[in-house]
Each structure stands twice: as structure tokens, then as C-alpha cells.
């Protein structure tokens, strides 16, 4: 079956030369100008293409970039794949290099962070693992304080899980409860239905002949009473108005009338003024009389002084008379009874 391969003893050149003489060429081989150069150029082009693609791939895989390692520990690494990005503010700053199971049973996600992007990660940075409903899982980094110390190489940080799909059952249960409540609310014999019926009856009564008053009083008789009360109040108010008008007229008087109270009071006051002026004149006269009385008083005081002297003189004269009487009595004893009897 393989009889066609003899041992390749002769060199190809000799073989080619030999059959060039013996065997006529099957097809005409047109010579290609600068064949070797063109072939070499083609080879070089192909080689450059492949090597260039390989280098670009290495660059894209981050082979030429110095990186530092960050280890994230999670209780579940579901959805995390090697090669996925870690983002910071939506920009990829790291790439998952390996996922391994630690001895404690946690998942260790080893992330390569290029050194030029490592300054976004600080000691206080927080890492989250978020799994969306559509699309893949995302690892996100948040740095609240960019003034904090930078994260060292090989740092181990826990990653917080935020799972959107985990809340779906709870959400469904809540939604089901809500829907059953809504069903109960909107059922034929539910409270909401009867309330709405009452509201409808109420609005019908409001729109009726008795209106809002009928709704408030509850029956027609009371509503009529209130209406009658209102009418009587109106009449009373009209009478009060008339009374006020009359009182006004009596107190202030209409123009041209003389029987009003206020003009009379005004006239009385004017008369009182005149009376007061007269009184003032009288008082001045009394004042003059008093001055004169004062003068009289002074004269009387002077007279009183003179009276004192007179009295002293009278007293001395009386003593002289008494002593004279005594003298006479001693010399002429008229008196039989010498005892003096007191009354």
C-alpha cells in the first residue's frame, strides 16, 4: 500500500534536473518575478501577523502589567469565574486570577490588581459580590475615604454578598399576600364595597332636596325645624336692625331734629361751663373777703394781747381790793361767824 515511497537517495536538485530532461512538464510553469523576495515577504507578513496577535493577546491578558494581589473571601463563590473583572465606579481595575477553597470552607477569590489602578483601593475599601437577575456576577470595590492608607499587596478582605435573585421568593410571598389582601378588599361583600355603597347613598342624599342638611339632621322634621329657626333668626335680626336704627336716631339725632340726646348733653355742658365761670368769680370775691377777715383776725389778736395786760391789771386791782376788804374786816369785825361754810 505504501509502495510509492522509495528511500530518498538522490537530492531534489538532481532529481529535478533528471526529470526535466526525461519527462515533459505537465503544465506550463510561468516564472514569477522576484519569487523568493515575494515569498519571504509573505512569510514575514504572516509571521508578523501571528506574533503581533500573540503579543496583543498577552497585553490584553495583562501579561506586561505589574500587578498586586488581593484576596477576597466569600462564603459562596457562585457565579464568579476566572478572568472576570472587579470594578470600581464602573471601571475594571482588577481581574480574577484564581478561585480556591480555603481550609475554613470559605471561597478565596484571588484578584490581580494592576499597580497603576491599585491606588483606588484603600484600607477602608469595601468589596461586594452582586449577582444580577440578568447577566453575570459582578465584584465591585467601594472606597469611601480616598485619603486612607493604600491597600497592601496580598491583603485579605471579606466580600459582601448582594444577591438580587435571593430576594425573589420573599418578594413573591409578599406580593401574594398583598394580592390576597386586595382580593379580600375588593370582594363583593367586603367592607370597602359596603363603604362605597354608603358613600353612594350619601352622595345621593346630598344631591336630593334636603341636601347636606338632611344628611346632618338625619330626618326631615329636624331639617324643617332648623329651617324655621333660621327664618326666625332672620326676622329677629331684622327687628334688631330697626331697634339699632331707632337708638341711633335717639342718641345722635337726625339732621334738624332737636330731641336727640347728644345735642342736649352738649348744651348742658356749655351751660355748666358758664356756671363754672360764675363760680370762679364768686370764689375770687370770697378770697377777698377772706383777706379782709384775716386782717380782722390780726386786729383781734392784737386786742387779745391788750386784754391780757388789762386782765393782769384787773387782777392786781382785785387783789388790792381783796387785801383792802381783809384790812377792813380785821379792823371792823362785821362778821359774827367766822367759820366759812362751803356749799
Amino acid at each position, binding site marked *: 500500500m505504501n509502495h510509492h515511497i522509495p528511500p530518498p537517495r538522490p537530492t531534489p536538485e538532481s532529481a*529535478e534536473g533528471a526529470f526535466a530532461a526525461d519527462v515533459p512538464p505537465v503544465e506550463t510553469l510561468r516564472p514569477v518575478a522576484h519569487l523568493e523576495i515575494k515569498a519571504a515577504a509573505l512569510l514575514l507578513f504572516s509571521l508578523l501577523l501571528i506574533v503581533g*496577535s500573540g503579543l496583543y493577546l498577552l497585553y490584553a491578558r495583562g501579561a506586561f502589567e505589574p500587578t498586586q494581589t488581593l484576596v477576597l473571601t466569600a462564603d459562596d463563590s457562585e457565579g464568579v469565574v476566572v478572568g*472576570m473583572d472587579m470594578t470600581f465606579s464602573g471601571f475594571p481595575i482588577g481581574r480574577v486570577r484564581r478561585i480556591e477553597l480555603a481550609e475554613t470552607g470559605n471561597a478565596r477569590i484571588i484578584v490581580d490588581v494592576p499597580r497603576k489602578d491599585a491606588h483606588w483601593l484603600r484600607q477602608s475599601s469595601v468589596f461586594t459580590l452582586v449577582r444580577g437577575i440578568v447577566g453575570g456576577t459582578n465584584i465591585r470595590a467601594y472606597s469611601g475615604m480616598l485619603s486612607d492608607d493604600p491597600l497592601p499587596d496580598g491583603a485579605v478582605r471579606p466580600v459582601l454578598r448582594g444577591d438580587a435573585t435571593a430576594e425573589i421568593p420573599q418578594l413573591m410571598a409578599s406580593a401574594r399576600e398583598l394580592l390576597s389582601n386586595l382580593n379580600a378588599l375588593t370582594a363583593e361583600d367586603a367592607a370597602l364595597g359596603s363603604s362605597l355603597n354608603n358613600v353612594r347613598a350619601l352622595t345621593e342624599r346630598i344631591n336630593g332636596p334636603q341636601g347636606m342638611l338632611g344628611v346632618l339632621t338625619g330626618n326631615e322634621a329636624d331639617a324643617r325645624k332648623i329651617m324655621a329657626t333660621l327664618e326666625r333668626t332672620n326676622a329677629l335680626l331684622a327687628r334688631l336692625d330697626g331697634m339699632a336704627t331707632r337708638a341711633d336716631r335717639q342718641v345722635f339725632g337726625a339732621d334738624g331734629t332737636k330731641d336727640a340726646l347728644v345735642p342736649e348733653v352738649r348744651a348742658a355742658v356749655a351751660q355748666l361751663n358758664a356756671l363754672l365761670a360764675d363760680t370762679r368769680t364768686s370764689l375770687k370775691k370770697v378770697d377777698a373777703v377772706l383777706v379782709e377777715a384775716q386782717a380782722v383776725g390780726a386786729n383781734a389778736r392784737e386786742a387779745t394781747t391788750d386784754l391780757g395786760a388789762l386782765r393782769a391789771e384787773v387782777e392786781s386791782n382785785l387783789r388790792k381790793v381783796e387785801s383792802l376788804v381783809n384790812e377792813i374786816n380785821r379792823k371792823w369785825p362785821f362778821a359774827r361767824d367766822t367759820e366759812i361754810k362751803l356749799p
Partner: protein
Amino acid sequence: MISRLPGLSLPERVWNTVRRWAIAWWRILYLGAVVFVLVLSPSSYGRGTRRALARHLYLDTAPVLLGFTVLAALISLVLTRIVVVTALSYGLSRYALEMVIRVLVLELIPLTAALFVAMRCTIPNGTQITRLREGGRLEALRRQGSDPVRIELLPRVIAGVFACITLAALSCVVALVLAYLGVYGFNVAGLPSYTRMFGQVFTPSVTMVFVLKTVFFSLAIALIPMAAGLHDSGDRTQPDSELGGLARMFAVLLMIEVMSLMGNYY
């Protein structure tokens, strides 16, 4: 597949078919091994062979390079547009570029390049070998003590492999550039994220599968038509061995594609 010749019983027909099938595949494998050995041996690159090799390399690759690149660019542009617009309407535009790269660069272009080179170069080369064999040239070479595989077949196989790899590489680069331009337009703002996404798609395993697939595609399209042309089918009842070679080539391409898909996505 089973020969329907009168006068032969069913077991004989089955035996004939299995034998022919086994022989054909064995010849392909054997020729592959021989070519591999010859490619590695320095004596294969003597002056005369080198000239024939350069001629085949140039004539098999250069004329089709531009045409195929334009074709690949057109396909890339249309597919990129379709995928991006569809992804945008579903709100999944962030996955559009990745999908374009996976579909175009990883799957479509290597296969298209292999089929294009097969149609344009290696199947006609296989026909040439058949004609040389039928014209007695290979026999003459053999009589002169020369190796027809080394003289006539090796340059064509190497040229086929080279053309397939070059076309695939160039078209992939063109497709990558056009996908970028189709999504980001004529600016370099999206280049960092594009590069990052490219790096994420081409993981080491995907890259290895891609490289192996391209190499095996090129080997399949270069070797199988030559093996079919080099050997008579040995059965006068089935004269068109070229068509059998073609069917085998497509089967191999399909198998490689399936295996690459399994390697990538399972």
C-alpha cells in the same frame, strides 16, 4: 456507501466498503506522518525544492489574500451590525462585542478561511497531483530514484497550510478591527475596554483551542485532497476518488469544529 455491484453478496460488499474506507483513512494518516517528517528534515529545503516551495507559497496565498480579506471584512461588517443592533434592541449591548468576537473570530472565520483555501488551492492542487499521477510523472520521478512526495506534494501541502493560517490570521485581525470600528466608530476611546474584553474572551484554553483548530483545519484541507489525488482508489468501480477525498475533508472539518466547540463550551 456500500457498493451496489451485481454479483457480490452483502458481506462482500460490506467488506469492500470497510476496506476501502480504512485504506483511505490510513493513507491520509500515513501521508500526514510522512509530510511531518519531511517538513522537519532539513534536506527537504534544498535549492530546487525551496524554489518550488516559494512558488507554491506565493501563488497559493497572494492571489487569494486580498479577495478573501475583502470577503471576510464584508461578512464581519454585516454580522457585527446585525449582532450589535439586535443586542441593543434587547438591552444587552455590553455583550454584543463579546458575541461578535466569539462568533466571528473564534468560529466562523477559521472555518471560512479553511473552506476558501480548500476550494481555491488545495482541491485544485489535489487534481493536479491526480493528473501528474495519471500522466506518469510521479512514476517517472520514482523510476529516477527521486521522491515524488518530496518533489511535488510537500510544497503543495506546506503552501496549503500556510495559506490557510495566513488567511485566517489576516481575516481575524480585519474582523477584530472592523468589529471595533462598527461599535465605537473612528476613535480610540473604546480601545482599553475593547482590549480588556478581548483578553477576557481569549482565555488560555480558548486560545489553545483556537490555535489547534486553525492548525488542524489547515492540515485537513492541505493533506486530504493530496492523499486522494496521490492514490488511486484501487477500485475500478469507484473512479471518482476526488469526490471521496472531498467528503472525507468535510467530515474531518466538521469533526474538528465539533471538538473545538466541545472544548470551548463544555
